[in-house]
């Protein structure tokens, strides 16, 4: 469990996050939603432990800043793509914490083979990551995160570069992982997908948390509309599934 109390983050004198108090429940998928500049990515980086903050962010009672004892996987929205590295090697980096850098155990290679098959990357495993399409790269990033066998996965817009078919593939993979007990925190612009997969939604705007609750509760809340300046509509399909669409010309 991660407990955030009175969190504030300032970068270059600019207040990015303020007055945030939240609890990230273990084993759940929490999704941060909000317009651009709401502070979602910064909050992810705080949870990772790379961004300095004031207040308190404790994972099992220990402050997370620069704490590398935790096994946390991070999937960035725009990754640095190394030259001269194959998909299998790139995914194998996820085992670095378990095996030590460059030591690839037979157990890890077995595990990587499974992860590559699970993410439909096996045929691509000898290809250079620099030659992958956007969708293939995203699946490779997810595969590396799975290879880590993390306790917590942080994903920054994991589906932004994917077509609908691959979006569902990636989200199903994550859901499978979450059901095995891994905690997931992601940001997502597609609120409909967020409501479909995440159990919990945190609505953010201008560095603050406007609302925090179950997906079904938040999707119909006034705070969600407020966060997007009332420029979204929420419909409910016959199946009972909510769909969020942007209003055309604000109408």
């Amino acid at each position, binding site marked *: 469990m991660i407990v955030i109390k009175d969190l504030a983050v300032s970068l270059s004198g600019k207040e990015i996050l303020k007055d945030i108090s939240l609890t990230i429940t273990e084993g759940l998928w929490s999704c941060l939603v909000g317009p651009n500049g709401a502070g979602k990515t910064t909050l992810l980086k705080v949870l990772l432990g*790379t961004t300095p903050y004031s207040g308190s962010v404790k994972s099992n009672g220990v402050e997370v800043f620069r704490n590398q004892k935790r096994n946390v*996987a991070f999937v960035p929205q725009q990754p640095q793509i190394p030259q001269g590295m194959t998909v299998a*090697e790139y995914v194998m*980096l996820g085992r670095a914490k378990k095996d030590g850098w460059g030591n690839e155990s037979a157990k890890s*290679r*077995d595990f990587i083979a499974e992860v590559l098959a699970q993410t439909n990357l096996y045929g691509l*495993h000898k290809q250079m990551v620099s030659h992958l399409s956007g969708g293939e790269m995203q699946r490779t990033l997810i595969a590396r995160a799975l290879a880590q066998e993390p306790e917590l996965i942080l994903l920054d817009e994991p589906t932004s570069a994917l077509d609908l078919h691959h979006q569902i593939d990636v989200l199903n993979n994550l859901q499978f992982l979450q059901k095995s007990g891994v905690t997931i925190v992601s940001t997502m612009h597609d609120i409909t997908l967020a409501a479909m997969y995440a159990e919990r939604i945190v609505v953010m705007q201008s560095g603050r948390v406007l609302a925090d609750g179950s997906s079904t509760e938040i999707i119909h809340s006034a705070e969600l509309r407020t966060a997007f300046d009332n420029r979204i509509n929420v419909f409910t399909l016959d199946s009972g599934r909510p769909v969020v669409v942007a209003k055309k010309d604000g109408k």
Partner: protein
Amino acid sequence: MTQSHSEIEAISPIWNWKITSLCALFLLFIGIAAISFGPINLSFSRIIRTLLGMHGGLTGPDRTVLIDLRLPRALLAALVGAALATSGAVYQSVFRNPLADPYLLGAASGAGLGATIAITNSHGNVYSLLPIFSFVGGTLAVLTSFFISGKFFAEPQSLLLSGIAVGSFATAIQTYLQQRHSASLRPVYSWILGELTVANWQILSWSSIYILMALAILISISKQLDGLMLSDEESFSLGINPNKLRIIAVAAATLATATAVSASGLIGFVGIVVPHLVRGVTHRVTNRNLLTIALAGAAFLVLADLGARTLLSPAELPIGVITAFVGAPFFLVVLRRRRTVAS
């Protein structure tokens, strides 16, 4: 179907021993050629006898040529080549820029300034002072780049930019000093073009300590350098402290570069040509090939020095001319290929 790990194992060896061994053999072959050929050709069997202390070895002037001239020169060329090539590969990993070279952070310009100060202010034996001045100049320039780049910890590109600024400043002072002391123009330019003519056992012994130490550090952290090719957040999540690793890598690469520059002047393009050549052959991440790159760099510079000594024999070409002659077209090919890939 479940895939077996053996398929993964087959594609992910850290070292390609075949290519590394080939480089070592090539270095040995080129090394022997370098000490055999020159204005006076020495017999291969007599060289071996001399080196092994056996009867029938070289005597008189031939022995002096081998022991006091060619051997330290070939060894220094190998050391400097290994240092520049390895530093170049590490800089390319650290700055995530395939066109980064070992002189980026001002080491070359700082060393050039140091050498110019030594040449313009010394009246006696310039060459005894030159290595010390250029080493201090190169190291000070890199430290200044670190100092100015306050955001180094946040963004490595800012260190690169401050290196360029410090380098330009040092070059400006160097040019001013040269204009003030026009008699120094020839020795300064000769040094800038790189030369191994000053090689002796004394230079070789002190430079080998620093260069071998730096190479040992870089090769020992080479696997972790994979992490620096990712974003800082990703490498942190994989257990790396990117800032600490970056400082260790840059400091060791700079030590090797500054030592190489102070021992042999500015020899360009080795740091770019060799890592790309090795990567072209092995198709591997540059930093995973550091040992191969070091051996290939050593062989490349020994070969270039052999060319510098023999092409216009008995006159000598500055070695930097040879490396630039090969390196500049190669650099353009790399640039063109990158553009093609990007488009």
